[in-house]
């Protein structure tokens, strides 16, 4: 693999370390920040050679080939440069966060979140597979939710974070749908292949959905309102979300796909409109805002709007503007946000009127603010200037009228920049009241601004800086960025916009912007969410009224309706009542069963219940016997006995406060269900099908597994893995009873009763007779009805009898120990039986056999012993809990 992609893991490693060693982070917070900055920016510098290298680097590894999900990455000059920005600004933000939250006990989790977020963002930029990109995309949404909601004790913080999450996740779903449609129509899920093949026709749905996905992420109109609200997040988080990550993911995708998707008729009009409206709505809110962070958030909105316009135009010239505009914005927006935090700390407020005197009080930060704001305004030779010139140039080439409109709204954005500069540079005689800003924060603020200046130098040098990056995105080859284009329309518009914005700042205090408009979208969102919630509530209220009966009835109705459809009433040909065979058995049994079932269904008295249930179980055991299933009959008899034991013990402890009420509804549902099931079974019995698996088991039972009783052979040999799983479940259920009832036994004693000495002696005698019978049943299991399950249930029934008779030997400690050891030894023996074949070099669960003439001994027998002990231990656990008297 190309080792450059390992850089993706660097921020995550920092995050993991922060989670493993939170104490170290808290103690040495500043050092952590420094280390993070050095690590991340060093990683970033490894990427710089790629920026100058025209080659695309790929890494591919299959992940889920059936779904075309690949673990594939791609690096072009542009994504390398973007990756550098992410890592470098991530380092600055981490340093800032570690200084800003030095005393906060939750600093380690913030560091971890920022680290993972950086990795996720790198993943978005570098993924080549749609679905991998989507996964990273959703990861950024989720992590930004946690980051924005970092102050989770504040109601507003939680509300705004979940608003951002809802909007970006909805967009994520749209994006996924778009990717799937694009994948289906183009036959590839690789981003680079789509870009290379440059298909002529695209499905409209894919284009629309992908655009919506990217627009929600980048907070484009009409989804723009979440971004200013996300300002509730901590300052370093805002700085990072707004500069190089999160919102940039959306425009990144738009820019990357623009060369292909801009051929579709929907793309350019939709994106240029949405982008322009975003800029306008940012002006409505930002021009009058007093809060520095809000103003900055609105300039971010505007910048994203411009980037969307460029991606929407999608021409090579627009994409060249896109790269420099995105770079410039990342490099001036991060320091501005970080500086806002510094100013707040030093000046005690971040409202623009309160920032007077900042230049004297906090010179470095204020200088950074002024430089960055000048870049925002687009003053030569800062990167923002080049970005704006190229933007206007591309817009002019697209349509001169549109370019003039862009210049007009840009004037508004520039006015916001001027407002910041004027606010900071105004003199004040009142000394500042706040605290001193630590060095780490100042450094973190100044570094991106320094890189901004460095970019200017690099662009001025003849080294083709960013040319490859722009070209890899789709700009014309070998077009360098130039500062001077001559007296072009773009320059005039730019100068005009600056003049206009200066005028605007002058008259701004006198303009009244209706305040209600800025809240419209927020309010609409709230109404939408409240509406969804009330619909959900009413549906839930309709379906789930809190009564168990109606929940059950609803589920039954659904199952019943779907099985009624399966009846397929048209085909009833073969249905006939078959009176042949030995029906006389049933003529006696069926009425008995009906009576027993009705009593079981209606009875409220415990004794009647127990008797009727026992009767039902007994008749079913007879049916099993009749239908050639002797093993089942034995198991059923034993299990039924034990069920009654347990039920008797449990019902004796339960006070029946609630008496079930008879109702017509209940009756009708029950009758309908009975009739439906009867019809379904009659229908299913008319079918004949092959059973190759059963035939195989029957044929191979004797030669391969040396057992005549095929049912037992299936349980301990052919399908022993299932049985193994089953005894594990039983062991877990036994542990569950111990956990739930360990203490309850003392609180809810069984009612006292007289014990007959006859029963006590008799049950002891019974056990003596049972032991040989149990051994015999266990031993014959492989060749005749019997086996581990039945033997264990029989043994348990005998023990249950003795517990009922309250034999003195069966003390609670004895039973507890006995049941524990049975479970432990049983599971161990079964496990040993399954892994013994491994020692002999055979596959897991293969039977190993020793033959003495006609006697065959093998691991399935050992396994059956494990089953026996586990089932016995399980039964004893429950008997102990349900029947033991407290001591």
């Amino acid at each position, binding site marked *: 693999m190309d080792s450059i992609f390992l850089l993706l893991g660097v921020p995550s490693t920092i995050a993991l370390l922060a989670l493993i060693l939170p104490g170290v982070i808290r103690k040495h917070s500043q050092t952590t920040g420094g280390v993070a900055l050095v690590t991340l920016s060093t990683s970033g510098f490894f990427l710089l050679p790629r920026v100058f290298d025209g080659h695309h680097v790929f890494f591919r590894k299959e992940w889920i080939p059936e779904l075309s999900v690949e673990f594939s990455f791609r690096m072009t000059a542009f994504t390398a440069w973007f990756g550098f920005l992410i890592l470098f600004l991530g380092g600055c933000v981490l340093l800032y966060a570690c200084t800003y939250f030095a005393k906060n006990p939750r600093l380690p989790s913030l560091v971890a979140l920022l680290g993972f977020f950086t990795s996720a963002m790198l993943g978005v930029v570098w993924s080549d597979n749609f679905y991998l990109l989507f996964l990273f995309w959703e990861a950024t949404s989720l992590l930004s939710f946690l980051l924005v909601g970092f102050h989770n004790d504040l109601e507003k913080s939680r509300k705004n974070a979940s608003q951002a999450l809802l909007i970006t996740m909805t967009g994520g779903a749209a994006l996924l749908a778009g990717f799937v449609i694009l994948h289906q129509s183009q036959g590839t899920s690789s981003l680079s292949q789509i870009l290379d093949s440059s298909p002529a026709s695209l499905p409209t749905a894919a284009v629309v959905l992908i655009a919506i996905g990217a627009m929600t992420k980048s907070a484009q109109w009409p989804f723009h309102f979440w971004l200013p609200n996300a300002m509730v997040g901590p300052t370093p988080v805002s700085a990072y979300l707004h500069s190089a990550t999160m919102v940039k993911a959306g425009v990144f995708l738009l820019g990357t796909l623009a060369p292909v998707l801009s051929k579709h008729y929907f793309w350019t009009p939709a994106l240029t409109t949405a982008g322009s409206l975003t800029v306008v709505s940012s002006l409505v809110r930002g021009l009058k805002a007093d809060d520095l962070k809000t103003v900055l958030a609105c300039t971010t909105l505007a910048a994203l709007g411009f980037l969307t316009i460029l991606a929407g135009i999608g021409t090579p010239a627009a994409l060249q503007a896109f790269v420099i505009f995105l770079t410039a914005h990342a490099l001036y927006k991060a320091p501005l946000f970080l500086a806002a935090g510094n100013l707040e700390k030093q000046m005690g407020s971040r409202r623009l009127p309160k920032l007077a005197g900042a230049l004297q009080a906090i010179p470095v930060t204020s200088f950074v603010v002024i430089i960055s704001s000048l870049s925002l305004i687009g003053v030569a030779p800062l990167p923002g200037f080049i970005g704006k010139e190229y933007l206007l140039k591309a817009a002019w080439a697209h349509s001169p009228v549109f370019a003039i409109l862009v210049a007009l709204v840009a004037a508004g954005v520039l006015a916001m920049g001027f407002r910041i500069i004027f606010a900071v540079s105004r003199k004040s005689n009142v000394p500042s009241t706040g605290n001193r800003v630590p060095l780490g924060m100042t450094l973190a603020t100044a570094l991106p601004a320094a890189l901004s200046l460095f970019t200017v130098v690099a662009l001025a040098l003849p080294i083709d800086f960013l040319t490859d990056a722009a070209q890899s995105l789709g700009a014309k080859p070998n077009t360098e960025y130039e500062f001077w284009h001559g007296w072009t329309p773009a320059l005039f518009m730019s100068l005009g916009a600056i003049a206009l914005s200066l005028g605007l700042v002058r008259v701004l205090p006198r303009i009244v912007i209706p305040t209600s408009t800025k809240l419209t979208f927020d309010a609409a969102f709230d109404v939408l969410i409240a509406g969804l919630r009330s619909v959900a509530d009413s549906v839930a209220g309709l379906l789930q009224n809190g009564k*168990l*009966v109606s929940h*059950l*009835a609803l589920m*039954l109705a659904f199952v019943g309706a779907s099985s009624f459809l399966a009846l397929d009433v048209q085909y009833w040909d073969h249905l006939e009542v*078959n009176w042949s*065979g030995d029906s006389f058995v*049933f003529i006696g049994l*069926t009425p008995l*069963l009906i009576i027993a*079932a009705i009593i*079981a*269904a209606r009875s409220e008295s415990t004794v009647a219940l127990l008797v009727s*249930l026992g009767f*039902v179980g007994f008749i079913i055991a007879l*049916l099993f016997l009749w*239908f*050639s*299933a*002797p093993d*089942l009959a034995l*198991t*059923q008899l034993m*299990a039924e006995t034990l069920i009654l034991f*347990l039920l008797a013990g*449990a019902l004796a402890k339960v006070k*029946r406060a609630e*008496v*079930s*009420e008879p109702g017509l*509804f209940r009756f009708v*549902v*029950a*009758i309908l*269900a009975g*009739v439906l*099931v*009867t019809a379904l*079974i009659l229908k299913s*019995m008319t079918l004949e099908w092959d*059973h190759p*698996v059963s035939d195989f088991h*029957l044929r191979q039972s*004797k030669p391969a597994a040396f057992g*005549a009783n*095929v*049912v037992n052979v*299936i*349980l301990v040999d052919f399908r022993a893995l299932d049985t193994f799983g089953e005894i594990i*479940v*039983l062991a877990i*259920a036994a542990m*569950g*009873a111990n956990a*739930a009832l360990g203490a309850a036994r003392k609180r*809810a004693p069984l009612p006292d009763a007289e014990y007959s000495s006859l029963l006590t002696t008799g049950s002891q005698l019974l056990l003596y007779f049972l032991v040989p019978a149990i051994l015999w049943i266990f031993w014959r299991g492989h060749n005749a*009805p019997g086996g581990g*399950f039945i033997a264990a*249930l029989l043994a348990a029934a005998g023990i249950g009898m003795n517990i009922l008779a309250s034999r003195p030997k069966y003390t609670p400690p004895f039973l507890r120990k006995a049941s524990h050891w049975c479970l432990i030894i049983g599971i161990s023996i079964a496990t040993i039986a399954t892994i013994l074949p491994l020692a002999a070099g055979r596959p897991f669960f293969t039977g190993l056999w020793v033959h003495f003439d006609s006697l065959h001994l093998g691991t399935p027998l050992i396994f059956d012993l494990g089953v026996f002990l586990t089932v016995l231990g399980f039964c004893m656990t429950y008997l102990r*809990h349900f029947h033991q008297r407290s001591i």
Partner: protein
Amino acid sequence: MEFFVAVTIGILVAAGIYRLLGGCKVDIIIGLILLSQAANLIILASGGLKHNASALMDENTDPATLADPLPQALVLTAIVIGFGILAFLLTLLIRPSK
């Protein structure tokens, strides 16, 4: 005789569902017992019902004449697991709700 088995199962289902809709906890447990008895019979019936044809193989038995052993193995497991589930449900029933 298939008809009688089908009716038997139908009755068990009806009784089980009637009990299940009773509304108290004991009702649910008893309803589930009845329903699981019905389910076991359904599985057995799905393999075809044969009288006097236990799945015990000799050297010279024709497999086609024997009852299907696979549903029997499944039901055997189902009975024991059903017993386990019931035992655990009873645990929850008598557990003091504190």
